[in-house]
């Protein structure tokens, strides 16, 4: 790698840091640690036609951040651009190819009503001299950020062939010391750390958030009143209802693919943790495992046929799976002494887990067909892996100076991204399914 590229790379890393730390209310600070060589692209500042001097959102900035954070693209600086068109017809391809830019995005925001905005953009292949995608959508001040992420998703998918996840959300738990008390929160934010909202706060622990398949609800465990209960809460309204508060442990909820059931862990008075299927509407439970060992952390396979779970029936924790109709569990993991918290990739081909890698707890992914295990993280106490809905990357918690912070990593392990927390101990991230546009 020559010096200029290194410098360029450093420049865009610094740029992203400044942009995001400068943003209001952003608890998560993004730090890219790319390993692969990113593709140079150009996102030209969007044009603006409206009542106010400035547009309600810098759309180009949102797209630049999204593409940069993917680790696959290096948007060039505005200072280096030879032209700044806002309409596709004005693009001069040679002005871009001379800079080595492979793709250029131009667009504008037009105000068409008091709170109605038309966002339009076009993506061009500069060497092929053709439009790859052009799209126009309407938004309000409240939805224009989502519209910008959606534009980034369309650009990303066109250029990589992989569906973008910039419009998705992340939920996670924070713990902060407030005087004598520890305050636990369940937080929902955009996947880039923006738009962060606390949807539950408690002085008793909150843990194990899980998204419903339509991304409208979160199930979680709360210890309010010094006993564990499982709640399901609608993210938008904040309304919640308890779905399981039996004696003993109520834990580890995870939704079925149809959203009607949860797989949960119940312990009962005797404290024998087993896997149960809970019907959310009727609250009826069906027991799946009966072993004396700890059986917990159930996760549904995307085809709805199996439950993967952690069990220490063989001594240490290992991953097993059982048919949703019951039967004899089948052991899935054999490599190493500790494999826990299984999570399936949405395409069903891979299994993520917490794996003891020579004394360090790390995130590993197993190819379910070839049984090959790949360790993706480098920390000492990494936990809670969760796949992005495109199955191409994962989010997990790691430790930095005693506090938990979040990282994402591509499923091939090549691109890792740190999301350093501004406040408190951040843990248990869960990536939302695709939003419904």
């Amino acid at each position, binding site marked *: 790698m020559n010096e200029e590229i290194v410098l360029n790379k450093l420049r865009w890393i610094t740029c992203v840091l400044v942009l995001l730390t400068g943003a209001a209310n952003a608890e998560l600070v993004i730090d890219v640690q790319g390993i692969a060589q990113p593709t140079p692209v150009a996102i030209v500042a969007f044009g603006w036609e409206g009542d106010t001097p400035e547009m309600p959102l810098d759309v180009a900035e949102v797209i630049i951040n999204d593409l940069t954070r993917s680790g696959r693209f290096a948007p060039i600086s505005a200072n280096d651009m030879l032209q700044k068109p806002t309409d596709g017809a004005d693009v001069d391809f040679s002005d871009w190819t001379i800079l080595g830019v492979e793709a250029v995005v131009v667009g504008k925001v037009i105000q068409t009503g008091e709170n109605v905005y038309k966002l339009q953009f076009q993506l061009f292949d500069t060497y092929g001299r053709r439009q790859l995608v052009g799209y126009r959508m309407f938004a309000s001040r409240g939805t224009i950020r989502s519209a910008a992420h959606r534009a980034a998703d369309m650009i990303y998918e066109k250029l990589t062939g992989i569906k973008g996840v910039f419009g998705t959300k992340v939920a996670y738990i924070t713990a902060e010391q407030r005087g004598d008390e520890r305050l636990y929160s369940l937080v929902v934010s955009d996947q880039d750390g923006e738009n962060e909202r606390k949807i539950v706060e408690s002085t008793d622990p909150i843990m194990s958030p899980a998204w419903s398949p339509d991304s409208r609800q979160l199930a979680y465990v709360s210890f309010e009143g010094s006993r564990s209960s499982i709640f399901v809460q609608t993210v938008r309204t904040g309304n919640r209802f308890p779905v399981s508060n039996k004696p003993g*442990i109520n*834990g580890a909820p995870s939704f079925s693919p149809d959203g009607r059931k949860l797989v949960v862990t119940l312990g009962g008075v005797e*404290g024998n943790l087993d896997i149960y299927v809970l019907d959310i509407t009727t609250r009826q439970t069906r027991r799946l495992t009966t072993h004396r060992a700890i059986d917990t952390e159930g996760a549904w396979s995307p085809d709805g046929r199996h439950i993967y779970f952690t069990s220490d029936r063989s001594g240490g924790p290992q991953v097993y799976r059982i048919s949703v109709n019951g039967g004899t569990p089948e052991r899935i993991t054999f490599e190493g002494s500790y494999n826990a918290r299984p999570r399936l990739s949405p395409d069903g081909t891979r299994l993520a887990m917490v794996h003891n890698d020579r004394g360090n707890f790390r995130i590993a992914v197993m190819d379910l067909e070839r049984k090959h295990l790949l360790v993706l993280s480098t920390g000492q106490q990494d936990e809670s892996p969760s796949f992005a809905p495109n199955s191409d990357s994962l989010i997990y918690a790691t430790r930095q100076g005693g506090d938990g912070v979040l990282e994402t990593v591509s499923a091939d392990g090549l691109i890792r991204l740190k999301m350093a927390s501004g406040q408190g101990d951040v843990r248990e991230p869960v990536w939302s399914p695709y939003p419904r546009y």
Partner: protein
Amino acid sequence: MSSAKIFAIALLGALLAGCPQNTIPDPDPSDTAYGGDAGATTDGAGSGDLFGGETIDDPFAGELGTVIYFDFDSSEVRAQDQELVSRHAMDLINNPRSKVRLEGHTDERGSREYNIGLGERRAQAVRRMLMIQGVAGSQISTVSFGEERPDAMGNSESDYAQNRRVGFKY
């Protein structure tokens, strides 16, 4: 670790456990909203202040330790703690209306929900020991906080040792 040091940790734990704690009113477990649009308007009519209150610390709790510690990856009550458990058993047998909640904890290593299981295993080991000595099952409840409520915030071996524990809450 020397037994004197274990004793010191146990004593420290016991003293800490005896400290007054803020009592937090239980949120109404019915359909309560936190945050969001509808959040501010939803409230349970049954959660008024009439029956609110605070727990009073047992003035004699300092005499009887209320925390016992466990070895790494173990739910076995250590020999030196068995007498303490027996004294709790005697108290419970002599006061049949007294109830205890056994709170199991782990250190922070490993997966969180699996640690909930390990903490429960510790609480259940103490529960069984109490019941063998004649305490009624109805006097005992268990809860596991796993690694969620550490006593020591650091991540040294001695911090971990202080977090692998079962607390007796009356």
